[in-house]
């Protein structure tokens, strides 16, 4: 079970949109996941407990520490593009296993 967290500035907008979208793509790819969502300030402290962090490209810099500790950090340019999400999951998660 892959542990995933979606983060955004407030925890109620884009992180929930990311959660909806990645749930769909992980299901399509047959990867079982547990997805949480939260604000960046909370997620920053929790990120190292997760396998993958998803956030907007603009927020990626907040997770440099977690990335240095081996957490995969994926920044999305277009949160609504399932194509971008799928491509980035394949590139960063599937091919890294």
């Amino acid at each position, binding site marked *: 079970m892959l542990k995933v967290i979606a983060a*955004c*500035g*407030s*925890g*109620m*907008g*884009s992180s*929930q*949109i990311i959660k*909806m*979208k990645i749930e769909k793509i992980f299901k399509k790819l047959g990867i079982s996941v547990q997805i949480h969502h939260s*604000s*960046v300030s909370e997620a920053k402290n929790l990120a190292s407990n997760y396998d993958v962090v998803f*956030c*907007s490209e*603009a*927020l990626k810099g*907040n997770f440099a520490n977690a990335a240095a500790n081996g957490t995969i950090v994926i920044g999305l*340019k*277009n*949160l*609504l*593009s*399932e194509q971008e999400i799928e491509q980035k999951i394949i590139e960063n998660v599937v091919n890294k296993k």
Partner: protein
Amino acid sequence: MFKELLEKKRYSFHDGFESWEEAIAAACKPLIEDGAVLEDYVDLIIKNVKEYGPYIVIAPDICIPHAQEGRGVNETAVCLMKTKKPVHFSDSPEHDARLFFVLASTDNSIHLQNLSELVEYLSDESMVKKLLEAESVEDIKALI
């Protein structure tokens, strides 16, 4: 979500704005006028963007201004704003927006319903194209 937005007249149409801050204030205006959010909500959104960057531009041309749940908010609501000219959130055209959906939430389950309806509409590229061409509420009504 769209039904309520239309019924409660939570929409506005504009030519453009000099700054993204003005655009956020204008986008929130119908919600302030009907009491769904307090005037502070505008400042909270602006503060968030200044702190974290233009992440509320979630896709090309689409912006979802919002702050935290329950702060400066009286009611869970969505409010639409459409501009003719793009509003710039940074020097990069990636952060230009013309279609705004202000999100306000006091109740996460209603908010999530609103959000999933919104995401469904916005995931349809031909729908987004039509929304971007809308210049009046009649144009929006014809799409929903």
